[in-house]
């Protein structure tokens, strides 16, 4: 099965559908989808790494929590992220390493901005040929 993501239409918000061979890949693809809405990914260098550790009551809730945590890292630490490496993923916890560089308004063209990942129609499922997830983003 391939690995990738697509943005799904919704009136006021944007859905992210991400897929891969493993759930870790779904998380990584969803993160790339998220940051494609923040800034053009081609302009971001890999300079700084942040460790992420999260817990939630289910793997699908972890997916939403993961995206929200990345938004926090972007806004609070002013880091634009480009690489996402999910190292450990369980039913209730996640450990990851994400890489990017400090926001530089001269080089990074920011897009509209994402407010949060919602729980609306949140899904993370195993299929015959891999995994697929869906998260609706409030933009």
């Amino acid at each position: 099965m391939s690995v990738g993501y697509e943005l799904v239409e919704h009136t006021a918000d944007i859905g992210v559908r991400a897929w891969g061979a493993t759930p870790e890949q779904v998380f990584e693809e969803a993160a790339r989808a998220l940051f494609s809405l923040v800034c053009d990914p081609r302009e971001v260098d890999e300079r700084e790494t942040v460790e992420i550790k999260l817990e939630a009551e289910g793997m699908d809730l972890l997916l939403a929590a993961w995206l929200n945590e990345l938004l926090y890292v972007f806004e609070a630490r002013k880091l634009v992220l480009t690489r996402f490496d999910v190292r450990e993923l369980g039913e209730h916890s996640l450990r990851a390493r994400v890489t990017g560089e400090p926001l530089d308004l001269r080089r990074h063209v920011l897009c509209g901005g994402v407010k949060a990942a919602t729980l609306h129609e949140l899904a993370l499922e195993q299929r015959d040929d891999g995994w697929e997830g869906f998260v609706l983003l409030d933009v």
Partner: protein
Amino acid sequence: MRIERTAEFTYEIAPEPPMRVPGRVYAHASLFEQAGHEEALQQVANVATLPGVVTASIAMPDIHWGYGFPIGGVAAMDEADGVVSPGGVGFDINCGVRLVRTSLGLEDVRPRLEPLMQELMRRVPQGAGPRGALSLKEGELERLAEEGAAFLARRGLATQEDLSRTEEGGVMPGAEAAAVSRRALERGRTQVGSLGSGNHFLEVQVVDEVVDEDAASAFGVGIGQIVVMIHSGSRGFGHQICTDHVARMASVAARHGIELPDRQLACAPLGSPEAREYLAAMACASNFAFANRQMMMHEVRGALEQVFQASWERLGVELVYDVAHNIAKREVHVVDGRERAVRVHRKGATRAFGPGHPDVPPEYRAAGQPVIIPGDMGTESWLLAGTDKAMRETFGSTCHGAGRLLSRHAARKVKSGADVRRELEDGGVVVKTASVGSLAEEASYAYKDVADVVAVVDAVGLSRRVARMRPLGVLKG
């Protein structure tokens, strides 16, 4: 779902289990031809399943499909046995709008519009990146979160009159900084006094029609007068607070035996620790937003002083009113002849208290509470007044704006941001933005016609048209 038309602009969704009350939608018949309307109506029905919902799950004519609650939704929960739902407020807690009047006229501003818009763009940070206009040291955001616009008054950035003309006096009661996560504080500390992005904007407008002379006079607006409208919310601070509490409440509902048709309706019984902490944090986010809009008004005063070389007091730059349209408030309303304390959730809906209500500032009380309805970019905006009928039928609530028609993706396919900008400028509107691409997402064709939405609430009697404003310059995030 059974939907019955009960009046010209009123539809009822019959209360089929698990709905506890009917749905009531105020809308133009054309709603039923719009894409996504079925999902939006389903969301109205879903809200009617929540414990403690009083009378009806209500939707305004700008209703559109959201997540959990529809946008344009109003639901009052009984304080004794109801729930509070962060999704019924939204991620942008106290997204709202403020209208500022001046004693300048069109002929004063037209020749200096470009420098004025440049000055505004310089002083009011927009978009997702930059720091807000207000500098806060460690620990100060916690104070601001508890004191709201009053925090700015102590720094000389707000007058007592500014506070009295803000909903809640610019401070929501019950705000406790201890209920706010470290993440939210980190995000918020550098964002006070910033516009944000998406559909947030700052517009220089001219009043081009007055419908209710008495109310317009009471509110201090007249034909040809220049006003400034600021539409913004609680930024990353509010988003993080909503995220934190929705995540918490996702498991709470199950523990209290509440079945949810949509996880984004995650809620907790009022009085439970989770509800109390959410409300304490929500009040902090609301206060942040009041302070945010106040700070931006302060910057508007500075910009006008710079361009017109006179003090803002001489230029008559005064607050007309500031309203929230994403919030949950404890209010007392008359239900079935009895006074009842309820928690009114307004998500994309505005409070519209009627004439005589004690919460309306004395100088406006005879007219009713000012209601500010921002229109789609480049078209028109409205100033309305609250009514007795709103008090009786919708827990003192009305619409909030135009409501989206097209998805952002579909809007971008219709025209480019550059084309939208050119069309606005050809129509005489100066546009300043850091994100030209997103202009297409916010173009008027992506939204319902605000004139239609306002016509419906006026016809139903939920608010009265007072004055219409037309934009001259738009600053967009």
